[in-house]
């Protein structure tokens, strides 16, 4: 029987309009054998979580490039807790190295700083499959 593909939701929360990176990642993840759903720009955290539940995804990825990652991840933590959801969520984009630990403390399963290679992200998702 064919093994079910890991289903990943990639979301753009907030007002940030930079979508080159998240789309490049989407292509790479599809090539690496994952199923990807993309939310498009300018979604609220609630809309992203709604989509995650609707599409029954295995993991949620937030792409944030405007510098508001700490605020949005706090909102994410609260939203997931409010709905008692345990889907792992991660964040990447324009994240300073120093903020990766803070983001994990907030509740991100992984936080990828600026300059992270596609390979690193793929390996993270591969580790989730097991």
């Amino acid at each position, binding site marked *: 029987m064919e093994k079910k593909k890991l289903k990943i939701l990639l979301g753009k929360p907030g007002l940030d309009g930079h*979508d080159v990176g*998240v789309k490049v990642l989407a292509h790479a993840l599809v090539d690496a054998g994952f199923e990807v759903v993309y939310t498009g720009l300018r979604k609220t955290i609630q809309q992203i979580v709604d989509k995650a539940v609707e599409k029954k995804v295995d993991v949620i990825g937030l792409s944030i490039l405007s510098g508001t990652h700490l605020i949005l991840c706090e909102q994410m933590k609260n939203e997931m807790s409010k709905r008692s959801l345990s889907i792992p969520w991660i964040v990447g984009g324009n994240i300073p190295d120093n903020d990766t630990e803070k983001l994990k403390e907030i509740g991100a399963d992984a936080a990828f700083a600026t300059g992270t290679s596609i390979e690193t992200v793929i390996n993270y998702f591969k580790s989730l499959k097991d």
Partner: protein
Amino acid sequence: MNEKEVLWESGLRIKSVYTKDDIDKNVTEEDIGLPGKYPFTRGIHPLMYTKQPFTIRQYAGFGTPEETHERFMYLIKNGQTGLNVAFDLPTQTGLDSDDNRAIGEVGRVGMAVDTLADFETVFKDIDLNKITVSLTINGSAIVLIAMYLALAQKNGYDISKLRGTAQNDILKEFIGRGTWIFPVDKSVKLVVDTIEYCAKEVPKYSPLSVCGYHIRESGANPVQEMAYAFCIAKAYIDETLKRGITIDEFASRLSFNFDIHGNFFEQIAKFRGGRRLWAKIIREHYKAKEDSSSWLRMIAGGGGGGLTKEQPENNIIRSAYYAMISALSGTQTMALCSYDEAYTIPTEKAAEISLRTMQILLYEMGICDTVDPLGGSYYIETMSAEMENAIIKEMAEVDTHGDIIKAIAAGKIQEAISKQAYKREKDIQDGRTLKVGLNCFRKEEEVRTVQFHPYNEEAAQMQLEKLNKVKSERNSLKVLESLSKIIQDARADINLMPAVIDAVKAYATVGEITDAIKEVYGEYEEKIYF
């Protein structure tokens, strides 16, 4: 013939040696021509920098208008000769600083603007005739242009002579940048409203700067950058002509914003070939009579796409090369991404280095001694011609899909570029495209000493207090009347500029005016794809 095949990013093949034969085969003396003479290959003006150097116009803005004003004064003091205003995301997407969706974003990536009062603050003590102002605003451009005109009128400037620029290129927002608000067709209508209004009332103002920059940053190669920008410019021109305005009444105020990174010679050839092609399009296709209508007036800027987070000091060198490319390409205005701009708003120090980079080029390198120093080069003239032909082919390809506006609304252009961005990134990450410090000469244990520009947490609070003060002091009845007029005019499908100008004069907010327009025009629904 090169032993190893050498291809430019645009796909053009490069030989080991070029000779006069190559020029003779590829381009006529007429097409090379003289600067200031059609088709302007060598420059749009006869004397170019020998008479007046390019304008130095670094992108700047953050926090409150007070903070941005301070940075403007710093830049002007250090030799910047034109301003380019960065706005925060709420302002760019038509939201006020007190909107729920603006939390954390007020003053973050640019200056917060809610009402005319903010423009009054930021442009205080700045002579708009001496230091021209470019507004990098798109979705909400009609509001901010109106604010600029209202401010100028209030301060006694002669509007018929007022200069300045607004980016206002909404079509590229749908391709890459993302600060759209209204549906595609309504967004284009608003751009044409500003062109029409300015053609009649503010004839020296440039209400539109068509951007190849963001299209290239999003993954397009240099040929595509020019082709898509020209197709988009033509779309705006066609819509404007439909309103009975003649080509010579507005084409000379169009400007362009292009990207520089990658192969040194490829960018120069792209600009020289592109400038010639644009002149031909305006004269031969649109039958313009004035020379100035055919000018490719541009800002060619050092792009962020070529810079790296790794070994950030390398970006200073890259930007110096980009500045050289820009000057050798005959740009009117120049700006560089600062060396830390890959991940932060430039600190004062980083901004200063960018200014010095351009000043060293201007004052030490002899770049102003003569016009188009590369004119007649076997390599550059041949490749300028090849780039021109490649751009023509790419534009024809776009035309086979019909209207570029429809192609953008259907997500076709975005899809094509996104696939290319993926290929470009894979080429870098797999080491096929070399980036010094990133995939070669890399230092694993890099000690980075780059400072971060700090986000002022209090900026949001100060902006909110100011907004509340303005709201309490303004004439609420006048505001309501002005917003009703916007809705009325939108329903009548007429030019919204006069109504928007009246609203900003009454201190209506960016959010209130945007909401009024939204009530009639609706909001854009993004086609989701990747």
